[in-house]
């Protein structure tokens, strides 16, 4: 068991740190959350900066440990988040790289890396959430096109995306996992309506996407017709243990700030609340170690896969506990939306729901790791 990094890894970290210190002060001001074109430009600009410096493909080609260091250092330095580049870099891109044709890879991968194009994800539907394979958006062939009708939900960046990785049902008679197809849909095609979805945090981070006989060229299909479920699952464990690296680093920073606020406003003197902060410190330290463990597993060629479920279960609850403790420290200020952490507390409520609810994650852990029987 070794927690030290190799000289090459340390060298990568040192050079990255130096570069970040140089480049971050020159960044334009962050756009306001509701300024979608501004956010698009900002996020793509950051990806372009990474590209020019040779860091663009760290998500694709680097070792898991290198990726861990990249995410840790960029978060520490306060660099921009992956933002609008998320789906392109971490899902659609890797899917195309793994399953696309030569021509498809040539068309779509470089613009993602260069920060030219934004992708969004059209997977979930109003009646297909945890049970994604229940999706009903239909596509039928008409000449060289698929014609697509249906609706998608929880799509971030739909307002400003160039492409949507879309799951559609192409065979309604087949067993449900075998009638799904993966398409790259151009977001400027006629028949697409994007409606912002206001969340309980008050902002519109997601959208609903309505599709009314949208034509998508057959050439935009990645993988075979009706093989879309497998195509999608190929890259599901792509992040190999690093999905939450930046977030854990950020949570540990928030926890430190929280302790200092507690010290200033006197809540620190209440031993119960002080020790709760101490327990959270233990929690996030452990989550960091679990990240390092999972990354080391990936480094050894093992796909963490379901191991990611163990992490996500623990982390999503820890994040909610962090902001509940923040509220306990803030007292009445926890009801003031203009105070720090109050919006974060609201956002944290999605963590036990998004990307597989805790209940679904527990089923996955119990059935796939512990080998318990599926319920009838």
């Amino acid at each position: 068991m070794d927690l030290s990094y190799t000289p090459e890894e340390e060298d990568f970290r040192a050079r990255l740190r130096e570069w970040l210190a140089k480049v971050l002060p020159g960044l334009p001001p962050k756009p306001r959350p509701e300024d979608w074109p501004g956010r698009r430009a900002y996020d793509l600009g950051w990806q372009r900066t990474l590209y020019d410096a040779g860091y663009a493909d760290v998500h694709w080609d680097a070792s898991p440990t290198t990726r861990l260091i990249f995410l840790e250092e960029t978060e520490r330095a306060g660099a921009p988040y992956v933002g609008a580049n998320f789906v392109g870099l971490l899902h659609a891109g890797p899917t195309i790289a793994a399953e696309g044709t030569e021509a498809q890879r040539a068309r779509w991968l470089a613009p993602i890396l260069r920060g030219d194009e934004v992708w969004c994800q059209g997977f979930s539907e109003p009646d297909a959430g945890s049970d994604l394979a229940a999706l009903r958006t239909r596509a039928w062939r008409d000449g060289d096109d698929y014609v697509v009708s249906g609706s998608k939900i929880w799509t971030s960046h739909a307002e400003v995306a160039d492409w949507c990785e879309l799951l559609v049902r192409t065979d309604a008679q087949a067993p449900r996992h075998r009638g799904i197809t993966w398409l790259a849909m151009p977001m400027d095609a006629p028949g697409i309506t994007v409606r912002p979805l206001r969340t309980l945090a008050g902002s519109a981070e997601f959208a609903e996407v309505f599709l009314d006989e949208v034509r998508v060229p057959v050439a935009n299909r990645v993988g075979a017709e009706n093989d879309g479920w497998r195509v999608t699952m190929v890259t599901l464990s792509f992040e190999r243990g690093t999905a939450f690296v930046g977030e854990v680093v950020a949570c540990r920073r928030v926890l430190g700030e929280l302790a200092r606020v507690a010290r200033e406003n006197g809540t620190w003197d209440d031993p119960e609340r002080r020790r709760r902060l101490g327990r959270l410190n233990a929690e996030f330290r452990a989550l960091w170690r679990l990240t390092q463990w999972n990354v080391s597993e990936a480094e050894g060629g093992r796909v963490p896969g379901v191991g990611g479920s163990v992490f996500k279960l623990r982390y999503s609850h820890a994040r909610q506990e962090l902001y509940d403790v923040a509220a306990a420290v803030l007292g009445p200020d926890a009801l003031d939306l203009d105070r720090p952490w109050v919006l974060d507390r609201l956002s944290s409520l999605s963590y036990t729901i998004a990307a597989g609810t805790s209940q679904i994650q527990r089923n996955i852990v119990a059935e796939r790791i512990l080998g318990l029987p599926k319920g009838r």
Partner: protein
Amino acid sequence: MRFRLTRDQEALREGMRELLGRRFDGAALRAAAGAPARLDRRLWRELGAAGFFALRLPEADGGVGLGLPEAVLVFEEAGRALLPGPLLATHLAAAEVPGAAMGETVVARVDGGLAEWLAEADAVTGDASGALPVRSVDPLTPLHRVPGPAAGPADPVAVLLTAAEQLGTATRACELAVQHARTRVQFGQPIGAFQAVKHLCAELLVRAETARAAVYAAAVTAAPVDIAAARLLADEAAVRGARDCLQVHGGMGFTWESEVHLHLKRAWVRAQRGGGNTESEEMLAVELLG
């Protein structure tokens, strides 16, 4: 960074698991729980010969010359098997008390106002004067209360190796719960097919694996704050794990015959070492202020 067991570490863990499986299996455990707590001196010497107590002593001094990570692995196995006896006290005394390293001398230790296995010990570290026997909640850990002021801060190595034993209990609790959930049939199906039971088992694993990462990392860094974190996670994983394991066992879990209660009771005893977890929580809180 290679935060995984090396082949040697895997072999060490397997060797200890094999020895304990052979010399202290489930039947031996239940037999021990049914009789007054006596130490199996022959087993103690076998553990000594296997290097359990001399593990961290330098080879020049007749030890095995290994470090904290390896000690954590063998203590985890001892915890998993619920091996009785003052393992920690004897291991910690290996350098000072003659015979301890080889398992010839049994050593007890005063810790947090309590002393485990005092009457069976040949030697004691700490001041045990005025010790009074307690009717111990754990049938496999005889206890004495020791009066007098609490000692200074807990020894980090003792805290870490206790966390390793707790990790073993957490792992075992998960295994036992899953075994039972797979085989116990009610309403025409294994109870593990019911989501309510499934989710208890999943949480057992999540707690054990999170604690494992914390305990192993603390063994590598040996930093007191990492050890404090490991302790909190491991105590929680063991105590809540054993309770949930008991719940999964239903009525059987409430019987003396089932071994589940023994895991819970031992986890309670270990959680009291070092005077409980307040010191660790306080240390971790203060560390946040940087």
